């Protein structure tokens, strides 16, 4: 638009946003797009940023079978950009391509947790996330992305966005992905077949019992497959979040009452926690960058909360909080000191709240979980104080939450967790009644063991949502 030009009757409009255009009728799942991506970006043979997601690969009667060829959709409201703690994930102002600045990436993979489309991939050997770049160097030369150019059936296109915003199997998300779909013809009816499987046989194999793709795990170890979440891969976070809840509980108990908390013990615990928190990073030495995006990143806010908590608690203890000797030259008035202790506790609770928020994208359902750290911290405080009434109330709440989840069938091994939680409620209370002196040590051990076990189960049940899961779920309850 030219400044100062005479106003014309026609309004000047920005060109419509461009993005991927996908015709489900044309795609045969041939994977040429995926290979072209690999070659264009000089990725390791057999790896790619673009994947084929098949809908109904087992060919259930009455359900169409088709494919989605998906990479990054370069969303206008990209959660990976919002939630990247370091600001490494950014949207290119010219092409709109969402790209990773590898020099800033710390390999925390949180972008992969929050992406609905499995687009960010973790390159283990280099410790950073890589992803589809929309071939933006090619776009700047006026060429289509390599995957689009390579599609033998022209099912994949790139241009002004027009068409359906959704198709079965494509995750519904508020990210405003820049992709549009041409839906299947004939109302997505599968072919009328002269032979159909007897209905009683179909019923014998409910959705989920059949994959249609046995042996699908690639033989060659892929380095760019979608990021997955398991306890095995996330054990440092399991230790970190559990330990954080424990330390917040300890600080809270020390600030509330006369529970001892030596500065050295605190500093050692804090150092161990910080170390654990960096262990799962691809690039631990860049961990300090995590504070770059506190504004929009849940992970950034968690780190900020943790740093504030550790800082406030260190100051408090150094000034002689928790009955210890002061190691700082100037003494603090008692009211200010206890105020500082309260602030450390508050920051600790905020850190736990922020830590729980980090897991929202990867846990199914949004309701409060008994393993949430915001509940665990106060439980630890209650057991250390000791405050049987507070402990009974909080541990009882945890038991109810676990029982409700188990009853809804939402948790695998839910009954075991309920049993453990019952034991960790009744055990300490019994100890308190029968042997008040033994209360602390044994109760702390029992509670710690149960909380670690429950938290481990929490990690085992985390799932990064993505198109494969969406396609399987929606095919199972087709028609929508």
């Amino acid at each position: 638009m030219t400044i100062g030009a005479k106003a014309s009757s026609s309004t000047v409009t920005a060109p419509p946003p461009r993005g991927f255009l996908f015709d489900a009728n044309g795609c045969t799942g041939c994977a040429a797009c995926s290979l072209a991506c690999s070659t264009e970006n000089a990725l390791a043979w057999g790896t790619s940023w673009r994947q084929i997601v098949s809908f109904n690969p087992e060919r259930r009667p009455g359900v169409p079978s088709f494919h989605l060829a998906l990479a990054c959709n370069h969303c206008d409201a990209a959660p990976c950009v919002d939630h990247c703690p370091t600001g490494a994930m950014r949207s290119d102002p010219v092409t709109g391509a969402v790209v990773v600045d590898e020099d800033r990436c710390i390999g925390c993979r949180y972008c992969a947790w929050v992406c609905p489309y499995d687009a960010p991939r973790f390159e283990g050997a280099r410790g950073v996330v890589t992803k589809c770049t929309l071939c933006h160097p090619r776009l700047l030369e006026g060429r289509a992305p390599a995957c689009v150019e390579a599609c033998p059936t022209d099912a994949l296109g790139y241009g002004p966005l027009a068409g359906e915003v959704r198709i079965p199997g494509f995750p519904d998300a508020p990210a405003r992905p820049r992709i549009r779909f041409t839906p299947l013809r004939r109302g997505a009816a599968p072919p009328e077949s002269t032979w159909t499987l007897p209905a009683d046989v179909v019923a014998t194999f409910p959705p989920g019992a059949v994959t249609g793709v046995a042996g699908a795990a690639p033989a060659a170890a892929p380095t760019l497959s979608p990021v997955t979440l398991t306890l095995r891969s996330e054990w440092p976070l399991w230790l970190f979040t559990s330990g954080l809840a424990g330390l917040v509980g300890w600080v809270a108990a020390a600030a509330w009452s006369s529970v001892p908390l030596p500065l050295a013990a605190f500093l050692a615990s804090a150092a161990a926690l910080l170390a654990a928190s960096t262990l799962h990073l691809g690039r631990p030495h860049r961990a300090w960058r995590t504070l770059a995006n506190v504004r929009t990143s849940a992970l950034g806010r968690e780190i900020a909360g943790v740093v504030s908590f550790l800082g406030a608690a260190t100051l408090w203890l150094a000034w002689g909080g928790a009955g210890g000797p002061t190691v700082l030259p100037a003494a603090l008035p008692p009211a200010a000191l206890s105020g500082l202790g309260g602030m450390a506790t508050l920051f600790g609770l905020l850190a736990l709240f922020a830590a729980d928020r980090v897991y929202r994208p990867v846990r199914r359902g949004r309701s409060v979980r008994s393993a949430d750290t915001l509940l665990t911290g106060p439980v630890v405080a209650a057991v250390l104080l000791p405050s049987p009434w507070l402990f009974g109330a909080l541990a009882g709440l945890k038991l109810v939450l676990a029982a409700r989840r188990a009853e809804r069938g939402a948790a695998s091994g839910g009954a075991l967790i309920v049993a453990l939680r019952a034991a960790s409620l009744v055990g300490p209370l019994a100890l308190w009644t029968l042997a008040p002196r033994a209360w602390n040590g044994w109760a702390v051990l029992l509670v710690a063991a149960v909380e670690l076990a429950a938290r481990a189960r929490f990690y085992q049940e985390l799932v990064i949502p993505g198109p494969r899961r969406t396609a399987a779920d929606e095919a199972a309850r087709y028609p929508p």
Partner: protein
Amino acid sequence: MTLHTTACPRNCYSTCTMTVEVEDGRLRRVLPHAGNRATSGGPCLKGLAYVERVASPQRILHPLRRRPDGSFERISWDQALDEIASRLQRVRAEDGPQAVLYYSASGTKGLLNRVGTAFWRLYGGYTGTYGDLCWPAGLEATRLTLGANTHNAPWDLANARLIVLWGKNAAETNIHQMPFVEASLQAGGRLVVVDPRRTETAERAELLVQPRPGTDGALALAIAHVLFRDGLVDQPFTDAHVLGHEEYRERVADLTPDWAETITGVPARAIERLAALMGSVQPMTVAAGFGMQRYANSGQTMRALLALVALTGNLGRRGAGWQFANLQTAVFDEVQDPVAFYPPERPDGVARIAVSTARLGAGMLALRDPPLRMAWVERGNPIPQNPETPTVLRAFRALDFRVVVEQFLTDTAQEADIVLPAKTLFEQTDVIGAYWHPYIQLRPKVLEPPGEVKPESEVYRLLAERLGVPAAAVDAELPGIGEEAVREWLTGKLAPFPELSLERLEQGPVLAPGHQEVAFEDLRFPTPSGKIELRSEEAARRWGVDALPGWSEPVEAGQQGGRHPLCLMTPNTKNRIHSQFGNLDMIRANDPAPVLRLSPVDALPRAIRDGDRVRVFNDRGSLELPCTLDFGILAGCVCLTNGWWIGDDGAVNLLSAGRETDMGHGAAFHENRVQVEPSRG
């Protein structure tokens, strides 16, 4: 960085034109090429995987000699050629040159492939094979019926209003046909797929007809019955252009849809519906696949399919016709396929064309006067790919000496005494045709052969020198060493065609001389009668079949029926061309390991669950592999894609029979009955 136009020479319908980018002497990218109207969308994943294939660390780059323990050691070319030459001389002196088997297959297209037989004639003779694994029954049925394997151009399919893909899963085997199917559908065209499997292609169809394998002929006969019964035959067309339609009417008079239902398993009303579609929607194109004509009864089956195209008048027009293999580019052949497959009526005493490709193992073992002592294999992997792998393996192991020219250590190369490193399509210039689209293409040398790779034409020259063949005779038959000599030799082959020259081909694909966009547009058919021959005297005389199309029960149904009740379907997949490409990481990422697909109907009584390991077996062999359930495959059929190597535990020909088709000397190895049980291991 340089860009080059080339073409993919695999044994595949598409024969894509490609633009390749070479950077620092290495293949960097494979890109689409707009100059070929049939493949302008760009090569499939296999073509794109050339980037890995040419540079793979698995590639053989030097001559290898097998050690007694089965491993290989690197040797020099001089060592390799000296040993081969001395073996050849000894065999020739003791048993005559025909004790050497020259076996070449379809691994690479190109005019230079001919230097093989030229060399073996210079050597004094050889034993060769007749017939072919791939397509003879369909080619012969088409030749007998229409006179030639000439079809409308691929893009004309977009003009069809009814497309019948009969036994063809184009989405996997001929992906470039799909945009033309799609164009027809977008314009309101209709698609029917006939296939026992609910294939990728079937997903686009309004109707999927699922006959029992090997019964397509019965289905076609019943459709003809309905066409005659309901007056859907194009009477003026058949009166003028079809020989034998009156007799055929009588032949099918009793072959009702009810009769066909008992044989095919397809409900009679569905047969009526398909017949009504074929008889009323014009123009119709029937595209028949290759797999269906690898049954013992399949020549007659293909003739019965062709009859439907003829009876409905769907020839010589746009959007209409029969598509099997369009051989319009076979202009360089003195004798075209399928006739070129047949053993010569009068052997010339030099080439002993005496082993049926379909019965390679048994045929090799049976030869006398002289028995075979040595084999030379190029462009092929016959041990897992020819029928009855155990017998083929036995036959190769019975020889004194084996030479295999290969890019990778395939199952056949592993059996060799000497392996010679083979070129890729990028490493020597050649000219290739196609069998779907009508373009002749140049495949220029764009890369230096890596390591010590030498093209076969040079290897033969070096061997001829060692064998003392006079230089003049060598020069007359084989191109000289080097790129310039190869181009000169090719120029000679192009000389009869003013339309073709290397310079012209360098610009891109060129339509074959005499190309017909609409086949048989003048409605003159090069058959003995000049008409479409439903009644073929030649069929009866040459092959001993009925002069009219017919159907008989597949052989295996009777032989193996009881103990081995399941039909093992062994189709091609998009991920490989026969046994090529499956060893590459780029392909493995899409298709990591063999999997047997079977119907829940067949899994339930066998207590097989999804993902279980199963044993697939018959009297010829067995395989153990994981399975997955397929709700779309016809009950009674199990499916395992072909082309896995023996070490992958998926080589399907461990189970198949060496058996010829009823015509054309094809291989009936898709007729393969098995039993499946849970693996005990």
